[in-house]
């Protein structure tokens, strides 16, 4: 047990070293959510209130929690999928023949993905504040951290599940285009879900990120479509389900 904790810490440490050494990845992963936030925010202006957005809440305030959700979606899925890089570069074998349990490997990676994801999310949050979002209360901020952890863990599990079933990187762009982007657009991150026709709305309700973004909105700007308890329960359930699935598939994967 102690050994496993130590292994989790070691895997986390490796993820940190890699993350801070890969400067291009650090900037690359933060750039696209930042541009979404800055240009959409400036384009629509913080003063204007769009239809569907509660009165008194500017677009930048509405958008920032959504873009935080986007940041977490992308960075967490990548963290899960990074098993593929290790597979490609052979390092997965080094990890898999060590006496460390598979669950510790999964938890170490999750811890690494969580740290980097939340770090990026906080940078986006600060950018949002610079662009005009009101500074959240301490309770609001702490509550938002809870939702961030749940969102990140959910999608690390999803990435891990895919990475365990994929032989190489060839399916990567498929996942990007047919999974990550739809999850993003169908989460209500950019505009209220009311704008969708009802068929599409059903899809949005099936998307765990929808509840994550909604929970973040409640925490940071005090406005949400669902009750935060509903957000928490549904997101928490999908978090447990997807991380378990990812861990199970990773456990049964063979390394060649």
């Amino acid at each position, binding site marked *: 047990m102690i*050994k496993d904790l*130590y*292994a989790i810490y*070691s895997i986390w*440490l*490796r993820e940190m*070293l*890699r993350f801070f*050494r*890969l400067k291009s990845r650090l900037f690359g992963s933060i750039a696209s959510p930042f541009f979404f936030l800055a240009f959409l925010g400036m384009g629509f202006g913080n003063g204007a209130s769009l239809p569907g957005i509660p009165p008194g809440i500017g677009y930048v305030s509405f958008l920032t929690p959504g873009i935080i959700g986007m940041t977490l979606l992308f960075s967490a899925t990548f963290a899960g999928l990074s098993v593929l890089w290790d597979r*490609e*570069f*052979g*390092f*997965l*074998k*080094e*990890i*898999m*023949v*060590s*006496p*460390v*349990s598979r669950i510790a490997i999964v938890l170490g990676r999750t811890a690494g993905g969580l740290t980097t994801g939340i770090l990026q999310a906080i940078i986006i949050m600060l950018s949002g504040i610079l662009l005009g979002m009101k500074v959240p209360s301490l309770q609001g901020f702490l509550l938002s951290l809870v939702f961030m952890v749940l969102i990140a863990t959910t999608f690390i599990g999803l990435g891990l599940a895919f990475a365990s079933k994929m032989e190489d990187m060839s399916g990567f762009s498929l996942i990007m285009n047919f999974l990550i982007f739809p999850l993003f657009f169908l989460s209500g991150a950019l505009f209220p879900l009311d704008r969708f026709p009802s068929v599409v709305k059903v899809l949005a309700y099936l998307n765990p990120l929808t509840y994550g973004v909604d929970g973040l909105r409640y925490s940071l700007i005090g406005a949400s479509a669902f009750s935060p308890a509903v957000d928490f329960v549904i997101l928490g359930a999908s978090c447990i389900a997807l991380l378990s699935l990812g861990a199970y598939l990773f456990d049964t994967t*063979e*390394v*060649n």
Partner: protein
Amino acid sequence: MNDITDEVKPTEVIKDAAISMRGLTKKFGEMIAVNQIDLDIKKGELFGLLGANGAGKSTIIKMLTTMITPTSGEARVWGYNVEKERKEVRSSIGVVFQDPAVDGMLTGRENLDFHGRMYGMDASSRKARIAEVLDLVDLTEKADVRMQDYSGGMKRRLEIARGLMHYPHVLFLDEPTIGLDAQTRRYIWQYIRNMNKDLGITIILTTHYMEEADFLCDRVAIMDNGKIVALDTPENLKDLIGSETITLETVEGKDALMQILPSFPWIKSINASNGTIELQVDHAQSRIPEIMLEANRNSAVITSVSLHKPTLEDVFLKYTGRKIRDLPGSGSSMANMMFRRRG
């Protein structure tokens, strides 16, 4: 026990062997990669699995290192079952993979440190051991360079050091010198030999280089199509081929020479064609002067003499019916090279 098919096979695994396999089989779909292997490797042995690519060597290694599960049969490593006691097996072994398995973003020292952590070593024993193994492979000076800047040979040396990091009982080396230049190969051979002789570590290596198996191994198993076709010391295997061959090229006096040569009792057989004569002889080096003297006495003019000693290549040819070089996919294939550049 030159030919294992003549041997009476023991039916149960031997628990105090370093490695023991009984009926070990791996199928990938319809393809049988490893077929009913029975093999025991003694503690302290430097054992070689020799064969072409696709013969099943790496598949055996993958089963023994718990990376894939056998389809049937049983294998024990250091007394532990590779399917039921994976964690114990993993703690007992070190593995150097065929393709590089390092994190290029980390330095050599950090890769070793990560490894030590994964095997539960504490900070002070890691520090001391890292210094030791780095010294063993002469990489102390490069320890703080990121591994993406290492050459192929340096990467391999660091991986060997890493394999030793946690004091394994058994070290697996899968094609340890593939893709390396001749000089680096010699160095690596030296390291491997030292580890076995000085540190007493049991080593199992796979290779498709005959001279590597010959130079390093206490015993060699020749594999073909998932089976072991020959198993013995390199010397005994070569003795199976028999005598050495002296080839003489003559311009004149060949007939006179052919009259005289059969009178030497130590010549086992003579084969003449055109201007060349082939003699099967034991201890051929010491017989050449006698032959030359006799040729001179009979005014025969010999323009060249060559000596061929049996090699493992000849043994391989005898047992598989083909040369290892002729096989498709043998050597470092293009795909292999491309993988090697990254990481």
